[in-house]
């Protein structure tokens, strides 16, 4: 796949993006809606992944994120990223493309700021395919996004970075 940062010029392709069927779970439908109508105006960094013919086969987006660890002496302030979406076109699913999307996304993160080593993704607790994909990419369940909430925070390290989390 060919990776590029998306711009408004990609709007038409994004508006027609499909990543789920008619009977999709709400979180899958939300992902499709977000890509089609919101991501280009909402996320800080949007990646478009295209095949050799230029067709849009996947999208990912991420924002800068700060992670605070209140230690006894000095609070730790980690610079990281928040994945807002990883979506593979429905015609390109189940062929291993998801791993390439994560790899390209991590590459882009490192290119933008190699000092940001932590990455967060918020995933619905029943969204097993996404949780599995995240785990394969090195993101693991940390804690619920909010008490009694339905989304979980998954956390991981951007490969190739050297972030540490020294606790007391």
């Amino acid at each position, binding site marked *: 796949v060919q990776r590029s940062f998306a711009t408004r010029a990609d709007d038409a392709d994004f508006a027609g993006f499909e990543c789920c069927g008619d009977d999709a779970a*709400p*979180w899958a439908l939300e992902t499709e809606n977000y890509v089609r109508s919101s991501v280009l105006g909402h996320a800080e960094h949007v990646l478009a992944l295209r095949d050799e013919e230029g067709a849009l086969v996947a999208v990912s987006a991420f924002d800068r994120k700060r*992670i605070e660890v*209140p230690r006894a002496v000095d609070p730790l302030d980690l610079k*990281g990223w928040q994945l807002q979406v990883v979506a593979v076109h429905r015609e390109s699913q189940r062929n291993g493309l998801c791993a390439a999307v994560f790899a390209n996304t991590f590459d882009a993160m490192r290119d933008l700021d190699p000092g940001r080593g932590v990455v967060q993704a*918020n995933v619905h607790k029943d969204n097993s395919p996404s949780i599995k994909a995240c785990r394969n990419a090195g993101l693991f369940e*940390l804690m619920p996004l909010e008490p009694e909430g339905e989304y979980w925070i998954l956390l991981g390290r951007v490969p190739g970075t050297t972030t*540490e*989390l020294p606790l007391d």
Partner: protein
Amino acid sequence: MHLLGDFVPETGSVPPHIAVVELRGKLFSPASLRELVVRLGQQVRAGTYGDMKVVLVASDPATREIVGLLAQAHSLPVYLASSFDPVMVEEAAPVGDLTAAEVETLDQLRSLGGIATVARVAELMDLEPSAATNRLVNVERKGYLHRIKRGRRQGDLFVDPRTQRQALSSGVGGEAPRMREALLDAGIRSDPYERKRLKLEGEAARRAQEIIRGEAEK
């Protein structure tokens, strides 16, 4: 103020817009800071620059505190940010004459991508439509929101100026699905796009350390 007047023509007919004014490169005396903030806030509130909202940016916490006190004392509709960075502008704090319920309403609207109808806000906040209407209209009248008039069936749209990148540039009033619409339709109120700082304490911090060290269970 002369500079703002040079760049922003006084008019009441321009579309909804936002001014981000960075207070730096100049040492403000108390009098000059008061003059700038109060005069600008009063002009924004009076609609001198049309449907314009304002974000004041000051990296100095003391300056932000003073601007906040001035906004409160004079009921000025101002957002305060610590940096010109677009993400920090989106995180700007509303200051001035706002109740806690009105601040909550702004927060909830922002969590919907910064643009929503009364019906959507009422659903998210578990409010009767009339109560949601009152809250949104009060916040809009105080000068913190844009209101895009539409037909009765569609309902007016309320727009948080801090999220203008999305709300005003992606076609206000269109029929495209909005952020979180599919989740809210299914009764899911979590906001997966939430951008606020992640705070890790206790067990969560230890688990994060394990993950970052690559010791998490595969």
